[in-house]
């Protein structure tokens, strides 16, 4: 432990948590110190869960937190190995031969442990495997460890077939049993891989300093991932945040006038009822609350420059469709087409995106964004889509390729709608630079910077 003892060490940990994008307030930091006095410090898991309870506010932060916790409160060096693997005796064989024999032996043990499915034992084994197989070339600065070396030597992926046979216990392949077994195999292999990576991080931290390891090991939280840079794995993560967002957005857009529990006083009924109680209005009657049935029109740029963003917004559109039938979706590149039909409830977003690419008429010219034409086509072909009950949501970066932005058409759409917003996945400081007409659009429609899911969530709450 560093100088300054436990409190200083905790400070360092809290700072690292903050640096990873998890906001920790002062009161939480104070609580953290209290946690240290309340839990059994010799029980590492108590410490982990205890600090998490005061430092975290969202489930999505947990993965990042665990990586940091493992770096700041590492397991001791000596793996508590119960492994029955003895290092191969020195019998005069070459290094390479010994390595190969060791790998073969460990691979067999890995198979056994994966079949067995005891997670704790698997983790212990991962530590041993890193120790035995993960070393890189020793260098003057010390010894490095690499997970790829372990995974290459053990190639766990090639165990799948044996694992399936083992789990199925002689039953036939195919059908339900195999699919269920496959899922189990996937989970256990992932757990093993994660354990190897954690152990490599632990050893690298000892070598290179945990701050450096922390910086490279911590991925941005899913809702902080920039839409414009999102990878497909990020999208899968994002997908999880979409459903609750859509639910909230739907609730906001259908915002009823809040008048307490019941609607306005129904004067006549109240007076009539009061006759029964000597003219005293003991029971009040209220008119039912009027619920506004929302109509939402989503107008979405799906050109290449905003691919990650449009994928996300189409996921959002799909999720919104599950909430109200009154959602119509339009997509555009240099022309506009209605794409509502691809988002039938239950449809798959990935399918929908592909079908839109194939079947929708969003490109009639050269496949480069033409906002002016796209807005024009929309206003002309679907002249009645936007009316006084419609909320209009435009999604795009406003990069026009220096073509006509179609400002008057958009301004007119905004005027005709109940409410209108433009969500832009580009940072606000870039609006108006180069071929971006975002600054000009922002004069006719409220434009909001929505670079990631967190910002989208924020936008939804301000609606």
């Amino acid at each position, binding site marked *: 432990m560093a100088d300054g003892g436990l409190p200083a060490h905790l400070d360092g940990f809290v700072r690292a948590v903050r640096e990873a994008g998890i906001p920790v*307030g002062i*009161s*939480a930091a104070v*609580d953290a110190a*209290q*946690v240290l006095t*309340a*839990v*059994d410090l010799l*029980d590492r*898991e*108590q410490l982990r*869960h*205890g600090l*998490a*309870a*005061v430092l*975290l*506010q*969202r*489930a999505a932060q*947990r993965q990042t937190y665990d990586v940091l916790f493992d770096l700041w409160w590492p397991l001791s060096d000596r793996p508590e190995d119960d492994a029955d693997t003895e290092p191969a005796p020195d019998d005069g064989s070459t290094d390479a031969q010994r390595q190969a024999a060791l790998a073969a032996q460990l691979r067999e043990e890995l198979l056994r442990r994966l079949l067995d*499915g005891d*997670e704790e034992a698997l983790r212990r084994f991962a530590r041993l495997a890193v120790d035995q197989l993960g070393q890189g070339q020793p260098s003057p600065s010390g010894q490095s460890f690499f997970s790829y070396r372990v995974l290459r030597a053990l190639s766990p992926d090639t165990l799948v077939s044996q694992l399936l046979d083992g789990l199925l216990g002689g039953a036939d392949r*195919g*059908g*339900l*049993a*195999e*699919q*269920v*077994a*496959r*899922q*189990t195999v*996937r*989970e256990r292999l992932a757990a093993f891989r994660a354990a190897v990576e954690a152990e490599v991080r632990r050893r690298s931290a000892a070598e290179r300093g945990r701050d450096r390891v922390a910086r490279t090991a911590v991925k941005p939280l899913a809702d902080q991932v920039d839409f414009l840079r999102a990878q497909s794995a990020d999208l899968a993560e994002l*997908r999880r945040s979409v459903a*609750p967002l859509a*639910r*909230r957005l739907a609730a906001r857009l259908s915002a009823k006038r*809040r008048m*307490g*529990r019941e609607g306005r006083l129904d004067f006549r009924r109240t007076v009539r009822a009061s006759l029964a*109680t*000597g003219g*005293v*209005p*003991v*029971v009040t009657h209220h008119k039912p609350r009027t619920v506004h049935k929302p109509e939402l029109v989503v107008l979405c740029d799906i050109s290449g420059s905003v691919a990650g963003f449009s994928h996300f917004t189409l996921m959002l559109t799909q999720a919104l469709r*599950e909430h109200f039938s009154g959602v119509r979706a339009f997509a555009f590149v240099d022309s506009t087409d209605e794409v509502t039909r691809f988002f039938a*409830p*239950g449809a*798959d977003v990935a399918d929908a995106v592909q079908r839109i690419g194939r079947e929708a008429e969003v490109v009639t010219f050269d496949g480069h964004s033409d906002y002016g034409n796209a807005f024009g086509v929309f206003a002309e072909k679907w002249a009645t889509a936007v009316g006084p009950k419609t909320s209009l949501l435009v999604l795009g970066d406003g990069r026009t390729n220096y073509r006509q932005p179609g400002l008057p058409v958009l301004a007119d759409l905004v005027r005709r709608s109940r409410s209108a917003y433009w969500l832009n996945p580009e940072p606000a400081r870039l609006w108006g630079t180069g071929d971006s007409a975002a600054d000009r659009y922002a004069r006719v429609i409220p434009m909001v910077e929505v670079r990631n899911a967190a910002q989208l*969530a924020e936008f939804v*709450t301000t609606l």
Partner: protein
Amino acid sequence: MTHAQQAARFADVADVSARLAAAGYLPDAQIATTVFLADRLGKPLLVEGPAGTGKTELAKALATATSSDLIRLQCYEGLDEARALYEWNYKKQLLRIQASQGTDGADWGDLHDDVFGEEFLLSRPLLTAIRREDPTVLLVDETDKADVEVEGLLLEVLSDFQVTIPEIGTIVATRRPMVVLTSNATRELSEALKRRCLYLALDYPSAEREREIVLSRVPELAPALAEQLVRTVRALRAMELKKSPSISETLDWAQTLLALGLDTLGDDEVRATLGVVLKHASDQTRAAAELRLN
């Protein structure tokens, strides 16, 4: 801190686990540790997670484990102070005023004190929990369903454990209830409220713990079948479904298999009972395809 200190309810984390288990709830290390700290630090516990992961049940088990009564505030859209904290019994007040109008020498001052007395106060869960002298667990269930204004109210009540009723005065808790708030995270609760609470993110349990839960709740089920069942549920959870099966559905499924006298979970059995676990037709279709049901 000046609040009424509350003697610790649990000796240590192991004590939490053991007593929750005795109350029929099987906690993991995270749940047990966080509950222990909520008690030690005297903070409300905010439990967040998908539907059916045991949030409400945790509060109930806590009440049982600490021999407390459970006071429940169920949140919904439109919940207001009058339903959450207290309200005056307006009808009764009116009738009392009416009744006293004929009597001679009725003094408005007396009458006012009278109709704003204890007798006319309708205590709602938050006030009830604060006033109780006996051990209490206050469950604020599905907090995210309530409007944001309710959070302000909770914040006030949960920071001081006192309520000021203008006509009566300030009521201070003599014995602090243990507070559990649950949320499905359909919306983000306010930072201020979260800061007041210890945070517990509940997710679907590990395979091992879920099997234990099944066997403890449906003890007649053969262990091998429970294992098969849990693994099948996990395969369903890995799919992109509208509604992933929760622990409740796993338990329902276990009951169903038992009731039908099935002792294995093969293609036919799954096909016949999939509706117990998956409520959307489109989810059933998708699952049947992905599981390659023969």
